[in-house]
């Protein structure tokens, strides 16, 4: 729907594919492809055999659905009740709003014009019920309008596919000789009830028929658009520094958030410059909040990044990532609780130094020392703290192991003397080796194993030393020695 670079040319057969049970299947096809005999729902390999010049792209169904959800809200321009219908339709309850657009026929023309301006092809129908509109839009004449009294007549000529049934039921009805909705209507109710008494809604022609004819209610449950929380202050004269206005803006925004029972995790400050440009600053918090002083404090060093140009005369402050937030009593004595302080500390640090500087190390499942530790966000919830190592591990680890020069090697164990950072260390005691083999599922072939030694030198320093590889292991020359960490 939102392809970059414009629509593909019409003369090339193009299909969208999705993953099926046995390889990719056709999700949708363009007109040329359909003319060439491509059927949506069949396998891509079969269709390639029919049409060798077929171009296949993968469908982004989640994004399609999200785009359709946005379109649902966009369609509120015509009527207040709109809802997404499946993966490819919109239902608008236009009762009482068609006269505003000059009647139903004019309304359909207006809708089709607006949608085609966005590059969308739409098939529209007006009918008294959801089911009838569904069938008429897909199988009826162009821009068909169906009144309440002619619904039986108009639906009767349509194929049974228009009853919103699943494929097996449609096949069953076809085999029974019921090819049109009119044929299903002519069957006595009792027989249909008896035949489909246990079937669900999607497999029950009688229920679907009742929905389409209005005998079974099917209301439109319209989704609400998320409210937008923003405050603004218009200035009489252009200014260059928004700082004096920030406390009031933050307070107003937090008031609106409080009245709605919401809190925000992001704030966007936008200034509209007199020369027609905009400049903005964003801050984020690690927990939902609506505390004006805290939010104001996050902007402290960031306001300088605004480029004021020749001044600005409108400041807006908008809350993003708005979530419901319950007012909590922290303590019986009215004091504030500890978690709150911690989240605010992390917010302040992230606002000043950037969120990447504030991390929390966690243990990971790995024997390779540098992979046994991972970084997560400072206040991330960690369900499992990972396996606690029982091995003796150093307190400090170097990001890059430092190679040492061995002065006096011995065949077994660590070297008797080595030079690290221009200092000679004589090994007095050692523990090890602890052999850590490379993780073959991650490492490149040829990675050498490591033998770790905890050594103590003549001055009592305890160092974690390792030898990379073995003599004659066929993975490079002589093994090298590295310092990887320091013990307490």
């Amino acid at each position: 729907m939102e392809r970059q670079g414009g629509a593909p040319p019409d003369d090339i057969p193009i299909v969208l594919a999705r993953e099926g049970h046995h390889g990719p299947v056709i999700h949708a096809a363009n007109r040329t492809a359909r003319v060439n005999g491509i059927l949506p729902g069949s396998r891509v390999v079969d269709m390639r055999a029919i049409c060798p010049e077929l171009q296949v792209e993968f469908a982004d169904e989640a994004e399609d659905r999200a785009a359709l959800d946005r379109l649902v809200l966009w369609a509120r321009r015509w009527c207040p009740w709109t809802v997404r219908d499946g993966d490819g339709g919109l239902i608008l309850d236009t009762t009482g709003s068609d006269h505003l657009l000059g009647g139903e026929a004019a309304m359909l023309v207006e809708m089709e014009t607006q949608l085609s301006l966005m590059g969308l092809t739409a098939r529209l129908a007006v009918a008294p019920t959801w089911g009838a509109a569904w069938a008429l839009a897909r199988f009826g004449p162009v821009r068909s309008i169906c009144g309440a009294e002619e619904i039986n007549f108009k639906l009767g000529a349509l194929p049974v596919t228009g009853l919103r049934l699943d494929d097996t039921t449609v096949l069953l009805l076809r085999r029974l000789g019921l090819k049109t909705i009119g044929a299903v209507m002519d069957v006595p109710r009792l027989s249909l009830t008896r035949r489909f008494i246990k079937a669900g809604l999607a497999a029950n022609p009688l229920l679907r028929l009742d929905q389409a004819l209005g005998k079974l209610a099917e209301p439109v449950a319209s989704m609400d658009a998320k409210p937008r929380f923003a405050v603004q202050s218009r200035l009489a004269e252009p200014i260059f520094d928004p700082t004096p206005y920030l406390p009031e803006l933050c307070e107003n925004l937090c008031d609106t958030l409080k009245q709605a029972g919401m809190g925000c995790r992001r704030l966007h400050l936008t200034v509209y410059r007199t020369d027609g440009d905009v400049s903005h600053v964003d801050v984020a918090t690690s927990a939902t909040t609506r505390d004006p002083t805290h939010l104001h404090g996050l902007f402290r060093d960031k306001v300088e990044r605004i480029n004021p140009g020749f001044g600005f005369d409108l400041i807006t402050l908008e809350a993003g990532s708005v979530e419901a937030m319950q007012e909590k009593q922290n303590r019986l004595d009215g004091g504030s609780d500890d978690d709150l302080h911690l989240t605010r500390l992390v917010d302040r640090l992230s606002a000043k130094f950037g969120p990447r500087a504030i991390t929390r190390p966690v243990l990971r499942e790995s024997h390779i020392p540098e992979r046994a530790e991972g970084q997560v966000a400072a206040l991330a919830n960690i369900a499992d703290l990972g396996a606690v190592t029982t091995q003796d591990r150093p307190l400090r680890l170097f990001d890059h192991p430092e190679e040492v020069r061995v002065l006096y090697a011995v065949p077994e164990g660590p070297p008797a003397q080595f030079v690290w950072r221009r200092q000679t260390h004589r090994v007095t005691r050692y523990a090890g080796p602890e052999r850590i083999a490379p993780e073959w599922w991650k490492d490149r072939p040829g990675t050498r194993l490591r033998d770790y030694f905890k050594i103590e030198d003549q001055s009592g320093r305890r160092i974690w030393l390792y030898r990379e590889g073995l003599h004659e292991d066929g993975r490079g020359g002589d093994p090298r020695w590295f310092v990887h960490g320091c013990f307490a």
Partner: protein
Amino acid sequence: MGSLRVQKRLAGQVRQPDPLTHTLSEVFPETATDAAAIGFVLARLPRTDAPILWVQDRLSRKEAGRPYLAGIGTKRPVIMVDLSRAVDVLWALEDGLRCRSLCGVIGEIWGDPPALDFTATKRLALRAEAADVPCWLIRRAASADLSAARDRWRISAVPSAPHPHDAQAPGTPRWALDLFRSRRSKPGQWVATYDRAQDRLNLAVPVRDRTLATGDGTARGRAAG
């Protein structure tokens, strides 16, 4: 901070820090790569499950490595702050000391940056005492200049205790501690043994022979500052 002083004066207290409150301490490792100081600081933190705020500057991270969680243990969560300048480290430490829910604040600063002067350490010390959160400043490759830290330690590793099962392996770590300046207790020198299983720090007076002090002993015995 002014109000704190006034309150203390009103309460009629002598301006003598309570030995039980947590405050700012400075640690000078003998060599930059010695992790004995880290071991000592971790052993001295209060035994709670509250998180540690650990702020490092770039040179400390490059020269002395980063804290390794598998060695420290996962009992207390660690919030790491990786910064580049000493000014930022001081800012983060001071900001962290406004939060009472931390178990401790550890800062690592390399060398003697001009930002780390008497005023900066005084701010840290007062904040730490107001929040009752211990603040440890680990200063590598630094000289012990003027500072408002209440305790100043010089720490180095010494050969470890014999291993109970393996004669040639290093055993329980031992550290030589030198409390060369303290406001709250008498300075002194100890050899500390850390028992990790019980989280116990045993202090012992070093038994080796020392040269006789040239002075009358009062200068060493009194707390300076």
